[in-house]
């Protein structure tokens, strides 16, 4: 096989041409914060395409009904974007807790998705937001698929679309790691919800690091949907969270630890989504 070739396309037309014209395997390189970790095999042949120079692949658009994010947008940009914070603060919070400053300055949202790590922090938020991915396949054709259906075999992610209809007014993201900063999640939770007059409307919750991909916690969602914010409801919610852990990782060494930890995380999630203090009396009553 031919030795490794590098392409650094400047725009989508060049990018598509590079993908289509290569007779050899094609790999993509974005921030490199996953691909370049020592010990991981780097491609020795084929075509390596650096997507970080492609015009119009690093942007965040929040003005339309849908939110659209270019796949090469850095995690640092996602963390600090005011328009995104106004509409989906959970995604900014998740991004702000990814790795270190150095990692966030290079890591991209596309890499976070394609990497398919069970603990990837942006994934649970993108899952509850019903994200769609715009792709360019090996044949150069554009397509759109649901986030949950994506595998690297589908090709290059160019955009992440968060349909406006799926964005609820409240959102939150919390994570538990082995230390406060620069920690891969042992468990993370994302929530989108409607909340009015002291009552939850629609609620969507997903957890990371409980399965190979984000897990939708439908029993926990049902424990809150349409119900009043009160200690008894929160107690129900906490017991469904523990049951979700039991069902997801039965017999796993981490089961006991995660079924306890998810209670604290769950209450932090509600507090963040509703702008309450995690020390609010309501939460104390819920765990009594």
């Amino acid at each position, binding site marked *: 096989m031919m030795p490794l070739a590098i392409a*650094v396309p400047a725009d989508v037309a060049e990018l598509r041409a590079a993908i289509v014209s290569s007779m050899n395997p094609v790999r993509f390189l974005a921030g490199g914060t996953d691909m370049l*970790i020592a010990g991981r095999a*780097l491609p020795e042949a084929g075509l390596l395409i650096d997507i970080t120079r492609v015009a119009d692949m690093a942007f965040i658009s929040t003005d339309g009904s849908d939110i659209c994010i270019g796949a090469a947008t850095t995690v640092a940009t996602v963390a600090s974007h005011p328009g995104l914070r106004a509409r989906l603060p959970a995604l900014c919070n998740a991004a702000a807790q990814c790795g270190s*400053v*150095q990692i966030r*300055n*290079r890591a991209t949202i596309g890499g976070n998705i394609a990497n398919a790590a069970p603990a990837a922090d942006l994934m649970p938020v993108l899952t509850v937001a019903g994200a769609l991915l715009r792709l360019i396949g090996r044949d150069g054709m554009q397509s759109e698929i649901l986030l949950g259906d994506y595998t690297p075999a589908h090709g290059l992610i160019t955009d992440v679309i968060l349909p406006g209809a799926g964005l609820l007014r409240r959102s939150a993201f919390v994570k538990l790691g082995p230390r406060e*900063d*620069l920690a891969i999640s042992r468990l993370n939770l994302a929530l989108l919800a409607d909340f009015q007059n002291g009552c939850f409307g629609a609620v969507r919750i997903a957890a990371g690091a409980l399965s190979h991909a984000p897990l939708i916690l439908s029993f926990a969602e049902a424990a809150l949907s349409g119900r009043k914010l009160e200690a008894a409801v929160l107690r129900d919610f906490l017991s469904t969270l523990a049951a979700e852990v039991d069902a997801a990782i039965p017999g796993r060494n981490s089961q006991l630890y995660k079924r306890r930890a998810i209670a604290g995380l769950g209450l932090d999630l509600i507090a963040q989504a509703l702008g309450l203090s995690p020390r609010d009396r309501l939460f104390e009553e819920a765990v009594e």
Partner: protein
Amino acid sequence: MKVSLTVNGSAIETEILPLLRLSGFLRDVLGLTGLKEGCCEGECGACTVLLDQKPVNSCLMLAFQAQGHEILTIEGLGKADITGLQQAFLDVGAVQCGYCTPGMVLAAEGLLRANPCPDEGEIRHGLAGNICRCTGFETIVQAVFSESAVRQGMGR
């Protein structure tokens, strides 16, 4: 392949191997051995450089990705002498073995350029990507605080 970039203010154009890491390029090709390659996993921060003013792990970038960018390493931080930030590290004893220091100083420099007036939490969060196994971090936080005060015109 060819790469052209600016390192510590000097324009450089040279041939490189495609899979050469930026850390390897800076250390082995340009001889800028201030930065260290401690882990090559993004964990230790000893390889931190500023890329267009922002801290990055040079071990997790390929050198060709720096094409057209400006890189600052510890060697380029002070022109003739060490900077106030480096002096602050010395003054409070924030340097022991010194292995982490170049990366730590550049991460702190990046932090102060982005946020001239960080509080303690922001300093700790901003330096979370840099590990020091000697100092216990307290003196490093003090050094960054003290330099921030100087840059605000509040003296040391």
